[in-house]
């Protein structure tokens, strides 16, 4: 049986890892290689590495870190941040990425999604969707949460899947760094429109939140603060979740 996944999210900013609150307030949380090695040894199921530098963000910098990480961490690695061309994506695959994450280009550069899936397959393409809950309906944002988009969540999900997205990485901006639980309403809305695996992110503050998200249909749960602040790690999360019959990887 295919297993549900627990995925630490690493945010890269100027050669360091940071943790954000609502996509701002960067706090330094360590060195990219060392943190990745810790997660690898703590039995994380996958790593998501995102370059969130808003100025002069270059996939080349990400690739330099990734090359070192991939030589030490023998696990699936998903990488994104500022990918605007097939050359950017290729550079990351060649540096050791198993999948790339596209966010902004998913709105106005759909041909890039098709190019990536044509060359590397749809399993190698994750489309990230950042959402802020304004009023009753979720609003989508590109460019690290800065540019609101007019398209609805369900329409956007359908469009990117039609262009080849193999997975959706759904991030609730208002929950980011709050540790009060995942946005389960948002997860439910997305899941109904989504026939590919869904990774939920934003808000995990307790292993129970992971359980809620798995029960609500998430294929994977991603988190930053939970593993960065406090004595929590993927091993402990699994020990806890095992009591609730959630199928998790055994090594």
């Amino acid at each position, binding site marked *: 049986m295919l297993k549900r996944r627990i995925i630490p999210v690493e945010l890269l900013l100027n050669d360091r890892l940071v943790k954000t609150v609502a996509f701002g307030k960067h706090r330094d949380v360590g060195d990219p290689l060392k943190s990745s090695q810790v997660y690898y040894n703590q*039995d994380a199921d996958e790593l998501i590495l995102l370059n969130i530098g808003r100025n002069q963000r270059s996939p080349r910098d990400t690739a330099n870190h990734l*090359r070192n990480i991939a*030589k030490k961490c023998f*696990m699936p690695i998903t990488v994104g941040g500022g990918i605007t061309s097939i050359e950017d994506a290729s550079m990351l695959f060649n540096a050791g990425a198993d999948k790339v994450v596209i966010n902004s280009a998913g709105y106005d550069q759909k041909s890039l999604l098709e190019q990536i899936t044509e060359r590397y397959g749809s399993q190698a393409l994750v489309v990230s969707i950042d959402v802020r809950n304004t009023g009753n309906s979720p609003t989508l944002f590109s460019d690290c949460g800065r540019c609101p988009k007019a398209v609805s969540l369900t329409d956007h999900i359908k469009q990117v899947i039609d262009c080849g997205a193999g997975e959706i990485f759904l991030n609730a901006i208002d929950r980011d760094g709050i540790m009060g639980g995942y946005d389960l309403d948002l997860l439910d809305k997305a899941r109904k429109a989504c026939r590919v695996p869904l990774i939920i992110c934003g808000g995990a503050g307790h292993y129970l939140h992971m359980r809620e998200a798995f029960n609500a249909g998430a294929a994977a749960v991603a988190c930053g603060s939970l593993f960065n602040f406090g004595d929590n790690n993927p091993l402990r999360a699994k020990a806890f979740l095992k009591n609730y019959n959630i199928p998790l990887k055994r090594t």
Partner: protein
Amino acid sequence: MKTIGIIDTGIGNLGSLSGALEGLGFDPLLLKDASMIDDCENLILPGVGAFAHSILALDASGFRQPLLDYAKAGRPLLGICLGMQILFSEGDEGGSSAGLGLIPGRIRHLSQDNGFPLPHIGWNTVNFTQKHEILCGIKSDIDFYFVHSYCAECEDSHVLATTEYSETFPSIVFHSSVIGAQFHPEKSQRSGLKLLENFCWWNGTC
């Protein structure tokens, strides 16, 4: 220290695989052509992409005959993912084409019944069906990392382990000194590394 060769036809990233072998204390040799095959005691054939394309790439770099000679001399060869698939006689992906024929059987599309999404991607259980030296120290029912849409179809006598998804398919196969893994040991953390280490110390006898 044994010399471990990795066949590099220029498709895909071999950083994880060579990094894994270095971490295990080996100094892997990346082979761009067949001239150094005889210097290798153990050989790994990785692979990404499609069956037909991969066989063409192997032919273009002149690997086919040296590889066949190597395996027929009873020397240990490990195929990973698509590298496992092209060890078989025949494959359906990208039009029917002949493989290396080192393991009798064929490669076909995974069953698309039952609504299971393809490709089959993620961590899934590997159940051992036979004992073998390269499985020493690894528990049966452990998860390994899979990414594929095609699978092998062969006699049970060539199957070392199976995995269940939209159907039960062979996840580790063998024929004398040739081993194939459908999953990626170099992405499968502790147990994956153990499998690679076992292979590197194996001399090809059963």
